[in-house]
């Protein structure tokens, strides 16, 4: 156990959650952060999907890393990710159809996610499978918490709900409170991501 969770492996898992966060520090994966954060539920689903796919794509690339020709490595990475996502979505479609309908929108967004490609290229190509797996989980969760934070703010102020449940009481609307339509627009999520990055960096000055 101690070897599985050595200091280096712990760093691979927990680093991306805070000091090496893919969104707030490396500013990757912004495109999908804009697309799916207008409500909380899609943000959570997208965060978890990216976590799972990054972890397993990392493991596969890490296993293949010594055989991959240097000049076509990006293509190989892309093929691995695309094949993995396609197979998973096919399996879901056959065995848990309802889930696959929910997730079908995300398939394209997952394949083109910069975090995935970034981790494959920067970490899995040089590391053993187990640290790569931890790195994938860490980066996926680091991405997920930012998405959830943005989704939380946007759904609360844009729709007055959280996960579809009404949070802002009707009495407040009667007093003249209005949902902020700007929150629903993609532009607002860029501003909120900017605020998250600002807050995160001023809390971690040395990073």
């Amino acid at each position: 156990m101690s070897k599985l969770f050595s200091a280096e492996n712990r760093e691979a898992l927990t680093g991306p959650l805070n000091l090496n966060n893919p969104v707030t520090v490396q500013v990757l994966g912004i495109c999908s952060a804009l697309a799916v954060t207008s409500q909380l539920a899609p943000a959570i689903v997208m965060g978890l999907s990216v976590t799972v796919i990054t972890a397993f794509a990392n493991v596969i690339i890490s296993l293949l890393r010594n055989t991959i020709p240097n000049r076509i490595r990006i293509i190989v990475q892309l093929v691995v990710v695309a094949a993995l996502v396609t197979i998973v979505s096919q399996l879901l479609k056959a065995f848990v159809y309802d889930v696959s309908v929910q997730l079908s929108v995300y398939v394209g967004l997952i394949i083109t996610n910069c975090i995935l490609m970034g981790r494959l290229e920067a970490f899995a190509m040089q590391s053993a499978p187990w640290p790569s797996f931890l790195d994938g989980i860490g980066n996926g969760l680091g991405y997920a918490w930012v998405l959830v934070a943005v989704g939380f703010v946007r759904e609360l102020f844009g729709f007055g709900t959280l996960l579809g449940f009404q949070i802002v009481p009707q009495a407040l609307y009667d007093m003249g409170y209005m949902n902020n339509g700007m929150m629903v627009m993609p532009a607002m999520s860029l501003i909120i991501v900017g605020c998250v990055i600002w807050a995160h960096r001023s809390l971690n000055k040395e990073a």
Partner: protein
Amino acid sequence: MAKKFKCNICGQTFEADSMPDKCPICMADASNIEEVVEAGAQSAPAKKGIDTNSNVYTILYAAVMVVVVAFLLAFVSSSLKEIQDANVLRDTKNQILTSLNIEGLSGEAVDAKYSEVIVDTLDCNGNKYYQASVEGATKYVFPVKGRGLWGGLWGYISLDEDKLHAYGAYFGHESETAGLGARINERGFQQQFQGKSVMNAEGNIALTVVKAGAVQNEDLEVDGVTGATLTSNGVANMVTDGLNVYRDVIMAAPAAGMAVEAEVAAEPADSVNNGETN
């Protein structure tokens, strides 16, 4: 970690933590210095005598990869196709039932309820629609198709027996934006259609979707999805144009009364039977 660098002027290699400004041996400019890639992971196969950077290896690797992945995808796709098709068929039935406000079914209950509720498949100028019997009342379900922002849209709109008012609606989409356009798939949006009129005073099909909060004619217009104007427009066109395809059936009913309507319903039923015998 110390990295190895090679100076192209004097040909010497040396170690440093990062790219130096000058070659420490001949003081040449940094642009002449190259990092020497550590002989770690990548050269492991080279020890076995395979050069992973050679053209032959690269081409072979790509070819094998393509074949393996193609085989894998084909295998997965063909072995799962039957189960997937069954799921899609059942889902279609469920969508038709949802448009009739029958919700919350899953598994075999869907098939059972569908064969109980849908009594006939009718035809209008080559377009299929369904006759349903919900708790003794006759309803008609009209499939419609359209274009959203990113991909196709489809839907089922059920009308009352007199075909003057909508009874319910269901909308699906291929790839609308999650949280925005994708909300047309939510029941809250679809339930707005219940009880709306199909035709305006001039007798044209006018049921449509307008910008959220801009409803002027409560009887004919439905609130769109906030922040998803293009998807909402797509739904509006799909509903209006889609129902227009069935105008012969929908128009015929109220103008000529119940007697003619029964005839209209009977005729297409015959043609369906003919189709089957042929």
